[in-house]
């Protein structure tokens, strides 16, 4: 049986009831309808109304993203790419598989799919975290209102235990399959055949890192350095450093002397930021970091670790360039590998095919363009300033999601 999380009219339904003949006959909503835009705007308002909402930074980010002005900008930018002899329409039924613990991320792809007019069935994990529970509460509140009836008829957030039958029926009947949850989930769900015309949007296991120009960094005044630490904190510590876009490596570029000094200052200011936020590791995370440090130490003959383990400090291990890609496993929770490079050109040769977000400080757009050209498709999906690593963009993992979620029709 399927548990309905939103709408909640009937708490438990069978797959036949969910994918009823009525639903399969339901028309798609128009692309970028006022109704969909307003629904997301209302959801945004509801989130902002929560007292102490700043305790849920991930929700705040989501609320900003789905408010009307941002959505309008996204639509405007996307529409610029479409010529007058092309028309954008929905694709039909979208089946989303959400990751279990990065609670809010699937909301973004769901919001985009809803905007373009698709019908959506979203399977989320069995364990609903507190942020997600709050979101579901709001979505249900809205769905109770008459004015969102057309949204309610076309959007279903559900959960069920791992069930091959449900997965296979949904796969066979959807027009789009959106697979969060990494390689394992992708491979598992791909076993269930979909229609030949079904469009699949897989989000594979990804890896992200940061690059800092040491001279530019050292030239900053104290205030700007502190600001950068705050921004890096958000990138690294939300989702306990376990989102695909969370930085796990930090590259410093420049002379050895400058790199050493920049590194020292950077980690010290991050530590200060942890203290200011009264952020400390739980016992479980502290143990994970200790074990991970010992694992690294047992296999490396070139690492440097001088800072000591503490629950109020980031754990930082220095690895030479030649070995850095051996350490792509990470326990999260504030465990970083740092690596000194002479210049950003050295990074190009280190890029791997599943690299996602490169967050940077101190590089001009033209330098970054050169870097991307040099990598030439080998990896890296996004290049963004430090502080924006987790900021969702309709261009994600190398796709324009709005293009993927819609059908583009030529009218000549």
């Amino acid at each position, binding site marked *: 049986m399927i548990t309905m999380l939103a709408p909640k009219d009937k708490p438990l339904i069978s797959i036949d009831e969910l994918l009823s003949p009525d639903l399969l006959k339901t028309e798609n909503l128009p692309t970028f309808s006022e109704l969909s835009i307003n629904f997301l705007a209302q959801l945004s308002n509801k989130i902002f109304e929560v007292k102490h909402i700043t305790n849920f930074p991930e929700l705040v980010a989501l609320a900003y993203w789905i408010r009307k002005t941002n959505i309008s900008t996204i639509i405007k930018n996307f529409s610029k790419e479409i010529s007058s002899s092309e028309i954008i329409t929905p694709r039909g039924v979208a089946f989303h*598989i*959400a*990751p*279990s*613990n*990065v609670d809010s*991320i699937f909301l973004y792809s769901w919001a985009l799919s809803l905007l373009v007019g698709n019908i959506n069935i979203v399977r989320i*994990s069995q364990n609903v975290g507190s942020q997600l529970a709050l979101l579901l509460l709001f979505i249900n509140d809205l769905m109770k209102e008459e004015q969102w009836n057309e949204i309610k008829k076309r959007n279903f957030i559900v959960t069920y235990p*791992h069930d091959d039958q449900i997965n296979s029926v949904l796969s066979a009947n959807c027009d789009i399959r959106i697979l*969060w*949850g*990494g*390689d*394992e*989930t992708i491979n*598992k769900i791909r076993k269930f055949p979909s229609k030949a015309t079904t469009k699949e949007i897989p*989000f594979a*296991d*990804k890896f992200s890192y940061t690059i800092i120009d040491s001279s530019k960094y050292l030239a900053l005044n104290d205030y700007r350095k502190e600001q950068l630490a705050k921004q890096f904190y958000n990138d690294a510590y939300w*989702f*306990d450093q*376990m*989102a*695909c876009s969370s930085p796990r490596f930090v590259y410093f570029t420049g002379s050895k002397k400058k790199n050493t000094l920049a590194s020292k200052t950077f980690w010290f200011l991050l530590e200060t930021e942890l203290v200011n936020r009264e952020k*400390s590791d*739980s*016992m*479980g*995370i*502290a*143990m*994970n970091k*200790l*074990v991970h*440090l*010992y*694992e*690294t*130490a*047992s*296999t*490396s*003959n070139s*690492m440097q*670790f*001088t800072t*000591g*383990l*503490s*629950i*109020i400090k980031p754990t930082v291990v220095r690895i030479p360039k030649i070995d850095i890609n051996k350490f792509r496993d990470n326990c*999260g*929770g504030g465990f970083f590998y740092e690596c000194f490079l002479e210049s950003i050109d050295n990074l190009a040769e280190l890029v791997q095919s599943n690299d996602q977000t490169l967050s940077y400080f101190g590089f001009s757009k033209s330098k970054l363009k050169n870097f991307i050209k040099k990598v030439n498709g080998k990896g890296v999906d996004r290049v963004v300033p430090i502080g924006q690593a987790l900021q969702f963009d309709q261009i994600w993992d190398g796709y324009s999601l709005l293009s993927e979620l819609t059908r583009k029709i030529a009218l000549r």
Partner: protein
Amino acid sequence: MQPIDKLFQAEQYSIPQVKRDKLLVAELNSLTKFHYNNCPPYKNILDNLGIKVNRRRLNISDFPFIPVRLFKTQKIQSIPDSDVLKVLTSSGTTSQAVSRIALNRETSIYQVKALVQIITSFIGHKRLPMIIIDTDTIIKNKSSMNARGAGLVGLSNFGRNHLYALDENMNLKKDELTEFVNKFGNEPILIFGFTYMIWQYFYEECKKNNIKFDIPNSILIHSGGWKKLIEISVSNKVFKSSLESYFGIKRIYNFYGMVEQVGSIYMECEYGHLHTPNFAEIIIRDYHDWKVLPYGEKGIIQTLSVLPRSYPGHSLLTEDIGHVLGVDSCPCGRKGTYFLIEGRIAKAEIRGCSDTHAETVNNMELAG
């Protein structure tokens, strides 16, 4: 005579802490050096973390530890493969990484000797008729054995006329059990099993099927962690009083031990305190910075043992939480450190994009 021989020669729990500490420190100094020279991953750890091997350590808390979880991900041994007598594994399920502990002859002999000294100091030297609350299928393969099997084999040495009371499907062999008790019930019987299994497959089953017998002179020894029993609100106290009131068994001993340090087990005395045997010690560490905590404060348990010769398991950081009650002063009269266990570190919630199908395996943590 080597310090380890002195630790074996003396009666268990008889050496005052100060003296025992000296012997342990001497032995651990040479073990640390030995493993450093013979186990490359261990050498890497010490070198990379800036831990000097040649420093002569004076205190038991000066020795470097390695986290037990490392035995699940790395091959860590200090002997060539050709010297491996048998490999012990923790009792994980297939989907879980298991610890892999390589034993040579020397370590294996020390383990058996240690266990004999500890157990006999509690139950005497006479072999008793023995009921094992488990299935004998678990011990069929002798060269590779999991913690549960190793525990059963180790403890079965203390009994005779063994009855494995469960079949391979964990059903109680009711007729054999009744027959066994009828035959031997007039003398003390030794009962051994894992805590959860004794409760679930023996006590609960006997109650359900109305199998009742009175064996007040018997001894029950059990181990394996409380996680599952705590879930159903069975504490050590409840466990003891339930078994006593149903079977009349008064002498019930729990012990704490792990597959990574077989042999040096920590037995619970009549007062419910766990005791360090001659050849082992525990230290409580603070997870904030991994420094040593004073007596009485709750923290992560580090266990030291002089038995491991074939792998650097002489100083391990466990994932168990506990606190030291005192030293040399337990009312039971046993010397050495005595302590309590309060549970296990809660696994950090893994957040991430790639975890939709990660499933939690509720594995019974067993130890021998």
